[in-house]
């Protein structure tokens, strides 16, 4: 990355960090959501974008992180930070225990197995007394949105730096090799099992942290909302929209889609979901390689970029 790019990113972070001081409450709220979603997309990016494993289990990590905070704070009356640590510990344990068998599966089969795990978690947690069963847990409210906002932003920066590190490290390069051809990677000395599990866990830690922050912020948690599969779909959509396997793509994708959907929800309120669907469809047709690719190529080919995309990908 060039010095100019680093400077630009630092500036963007600074502006974002300052938002609570000049932005409205609504903006800050929107920011918390959008930033947390960006963390999720970035977390998914590690296992999905870099290692090439389309995980539908990341919402499990998110849920574990949420419950970590909720259980610690409500049942044990421990501080928030301890709750986060507890959630992360559960996520890591989950990644290792279930990642080992499930990461042996390839492609769609992996996707579906992880999807199943999320379903199973709902039923399991519904029967755990400590987790409040179906009734859920109600957290003590903390009226400090700017704090949540800065936490979310900090987490996003952490997530993005992690991904940036991936692109420079032996570990990250190994993941890319696994994505491109796992068998070839293995015969060249990449410990594929270990790398995949580590990627799953790393991705899980980020999602768990996001879940923990969200739980404290929204103050209420039940199994359905904690392990919501559609959240996982959202992560994928956002990462793919921005460009999976790139450092900034998922962030740009998540923030971009959040803005679109927010504007739609407040401007055309009940038509919002229709337009949102249409935007997604159009985006795939016009820019199938994600926003990151548009940014890279648009300067060179201009509007022709979109026409060329269609020509290149249709039959």
């Amino acid at each position: 990355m060039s010095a100019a790019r680093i400077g630009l990113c630092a500036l963007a972070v600074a502006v974002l960090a300052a938002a609570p001081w000049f932005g409205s409450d609504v903006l800050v709220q929107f920011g918390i959501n959008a930033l947390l979603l960006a963390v999720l997309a970035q977390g998914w990016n590690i296992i999905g974008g870099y290692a090439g494993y389309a995980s539908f289990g990341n919402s499990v990590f998110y849920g574990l992180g949420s419950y970590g905070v909720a259980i610690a704070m409500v049942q044990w009356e421990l501080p928030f930070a301890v709750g986060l640590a507890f959630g992360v510990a559960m996520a890591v344990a989950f990644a290792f225990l279930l990642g080992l068998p499930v990461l042996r599966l390839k492609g769609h089969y992996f996707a579906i197995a992880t999807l199943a795990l999320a379903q199973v978690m709902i039923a399991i947690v519904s029967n755990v007394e400590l987790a409040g069963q179906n009734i859920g847990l109600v957290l003590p409210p903390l009226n400090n949105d700017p704090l949540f906002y800065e936490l979310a932003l900090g987490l996003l920066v952490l997530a993005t730096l992690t991904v940036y590190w991936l692109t420079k490290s032996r570990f990250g390069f190994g993941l890319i090799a696994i994505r491109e051809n796992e068998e070839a990677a293995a015969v060249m000395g990449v410990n594929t099992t270990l790398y995949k599990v580590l990627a799953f866990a790393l991705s899980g830690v980020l999602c768990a942290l996001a879940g923990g922050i969200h739980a404290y912020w929204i103050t209420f948690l039940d199994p359905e909302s904690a392990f919501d599969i559609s959240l996982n779909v959202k992560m994928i959509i956002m990462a793919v929209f921005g460009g999976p396997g790139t450092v900034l793509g998922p962030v740009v994708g998540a923030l971009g889609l959040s803005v679109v959907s927010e504007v739609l929800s407040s401007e055309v309120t009940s038509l919002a979901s229709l337009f949102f669907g249409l935007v997604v469809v159009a985006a795939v047709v016009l820019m199938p390689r994600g926003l990151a690719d548009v940014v890279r190529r648009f300067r060179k080919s201009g509007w022709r970029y979109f026409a060329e995309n269609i020509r290149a990908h249709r039959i």
Partner: protein
Amino acid sequence: MSTILEISHATRRFAGLVAVNDVSFTLEEGEILGIIGPNGAGKTTLISLISGTLMPSSGDIVFEGQSVAGLPAYRRARLGIGRTFQIMRPFPGLSVLDNVAVGALFGRNEGSLAEARERARGHLDFVGLGRFASQRADELGGPGRKRLELAKALAMRPKLLLCDEVMAGLNHVEIDEVIGVIRKLRDSGISILVIEHVIKAIKSLSDRLLVLHHGVKIADGAPDAVLADRAVIEAYLGKRRA
């Protein structure tokens, strides 16, 4: 000279088919061993057993005195077993250079990604792909991919190199080049197992030649003697060579 690889009674079955059937042989350090045999004889399967992409149904594989039959592929790679794939396995979305850098970063190597890329460049030049370094691997033609396979394996700094038809698709002049490359590798101390259907090449390269047929070893010995064997001619070489 000591034995680097010892295969004993290796067998591999695929649903009802015995692709490799009780094959035993040894490979000495610094030796080039050629393997030939009709299509579907089990040559590639044998290489997969050694490299760990397939596990043997029975039998043992000893590398540098250690049994590796149960080890996963990456452990064998780190011990120094490198292979190429007959049906090429490039990392399609990566540049040609990065393909090789994977080998230079893993295998028996240590160090940073930047160093690995540096070393990879040398290997690319060595196999004559230098000018394609920044192209995507899936834009290479067939023979280009063959060379890439070789460069990827070399970058791992293997002690034992398993070459599965790296000369297929090359013309005579290019084949002579690759023969030169392989000899140089051997001279640098690497032991080599070559599978090839190009008789001229295998004959001039191999110190010893082994013939598989229906998964069974049917001949093992000096190249000239093996190639003059009636059974080998009938099953493999054809009457033009008789």
